């Protein structure tokens, strides 16, 4: 079990953003988290990466309780995320952005950085090389010296994925990676996520692009008003009456690929 969400609830004041949600993600799968706006999907990501602590419940990563662990410690454990509204380091080059992602897999301190010790130099070389490989993987190698803010929207989304991968995650959290992408970009995103999966990374993805989700995911959890509505394979979800009622809509309203 890579990730286990156990009876997690989150209240903001009197509002129940999440109510008693549980699900489990297996090693190597692509797991979808879908639901209408405001269903609590991004809140779930924020709980997993401990931007907020859950009001109750537990989050287990490889069977260890990571609830309440500091955000940067969670990244160190092997969970890394992207953001729904892109949060790159906008004034840094693409390459540097990815190198920051490798922060927790490197260790140079002030002394070795200033005096450029042998270990520090080889570490920097390693980081640079790895960052270039990852930029190549997401197809941005030729833009490595471009400032992140000057990249096109779709490229920024891919750069965020590369940055997250630089931390060697075992579990990658993608928050609406296809938002604002055209069909071609979405297709290549599909290939990219599949490629990431083939490298042994488990993926948890929030997405509104239903054709993509249904094609990509091995299993899906549907959230609605903070509660778990359904869980299952794409086929089961598409044919689940309450999911259709709450989110997908009838066949005649929305075409599902």
């Amino acid at each position, binding site marked *: 079990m890579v990730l286990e969400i156990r009876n997690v609830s989150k209240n903001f004041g009197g509002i129940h953003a999440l109510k008693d949600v549980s699900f489990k993600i297996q090693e190597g799968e692509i797991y979808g988290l879908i639901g209408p706006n405001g269903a609590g999907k991004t809140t779930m990501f924020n709980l997993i*990466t401990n*931007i907020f602590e859950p009001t109750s419940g537990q989050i287990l990563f490889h069977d260890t309780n990571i609830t309440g662990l*500091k*955000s*940067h410690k969670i*990244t*160190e454990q092997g969970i*890394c*995320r992207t*953001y729904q509204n892109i*949060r*790159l*380091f*906008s*004034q*840094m080059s693409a390459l*540097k952005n990815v*190198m*920051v*992602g490798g*922060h*927790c897999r*490197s260790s*140079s*301190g*002030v002394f070795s*950085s*200033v*005096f*450029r010790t042998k270990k*520090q130099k080889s*570490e*920097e070389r390693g*980081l640079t090389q790895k960052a270039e490989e990852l930029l190549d993987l997401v197809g941005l190698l030729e833009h490595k010296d471009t400032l992140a803010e000057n990249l096109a929207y779709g490229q920024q989304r891919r750069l965020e994925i590369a*940055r*997250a991968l630089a*931390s060697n995650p075992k579990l990658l959290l993608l928050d609406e990676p296809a938002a604002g992408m055209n069909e071609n970009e979405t297709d290549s995103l599909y290939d990219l996520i599949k490629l990431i999966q083939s490298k042994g990374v488990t993926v948890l993805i929030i997405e509104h692009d239903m054709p993509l989700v249904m094609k990509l995911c091995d299993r899906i959890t549907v959230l609605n008003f903070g509660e778990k509505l359904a869980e299952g394979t794409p086929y089961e979800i598409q044919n689940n009456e309450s999911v259709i009622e709450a989110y997908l809509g009838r066949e005649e309203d929305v075409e599902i690929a």
Partner: protein
Amino acid sequence: MLADFINPYHLQIASFILINILLAISVYVPLSSGQLSLGSAGFMGVGAYTSALLTIHFDLPIFVGVLVGAAVAGCLGIIIGIPSLRLSGVYLAIATLGLGEVIRVIFVNWESLTKGSIGLTGIPQMGRELLKLARNVGIEPAMFGLRNNQFVYLMVFVILLILVIGTIWFVFRQQNSRIGRSFSSIQMDEKAAESMGINITYFKVLSFSQGAFLAGLAGALFAHVMGYISPSDFSYHRAVEILIFTVFGGSEVIIGSIFGAIFLTLIPEVLRFVSEYRYIIYGIMLVILMAVRPQGILDIHLLSKFKRLKRSKGGVR
């Protein structure tokens, strides 16, 4: 002869420029991790008083006093830095400004130790001590055709220059490394930086206390250059002056701070011929700059333009 070119007055201004560069960098470093600190004047005072008192009362060599002064300021930076983590932007600026005032008021009121607002006199002066040292090993200023006071100011200038170059080198190296990347990622997006595995507590306190250390260093050097300090040297005005060096020159790049310190220290001297109007001109300049170029004179875009220009020239050749 060499002696004809060395004007003690110019050297003294040059020394103040160097101290001001250190102070400007002490604002720049915390700012590079997104922390606007106005505490530099306070930390400067702590460094100055620590070193002055140690050398006066315990007869310690100046360099030991300076090091201890800077270290005490740096430690105070850690102590202040941790609770200040909860604050950001203008709130941090206000809190650190308040800290500076608290430190100044302590200097004024702890009369048994600091002699209150009269200040400390008789602080061993760096230049004179060096002259003594040189004479002990048999070097006379006259051997270089220098008068004693020329030698003194020259030595002070050289030592400060070495320290400033060392500091710039340090900051520059640090910036182009894992540490510097962490600082700037925190500055650009703290939440994203944290979720990339950066321990923001550690790095923010690190940069804050580095700034405090540098301000303390500058203060200690100031004490041993002047030979006299009083609480008014480390007042609110000083804090604002230091901030302006960095903001005027451009706070995004270290060159900006250096440029700002040089330019703004020189301007009142250059404008001496208009005597009482010079601070009016100084003020007008700042107002115009902030209206036209709020990011300061030098910024990343300007520097990368320079770089491109250089590269394209090289290509033609």
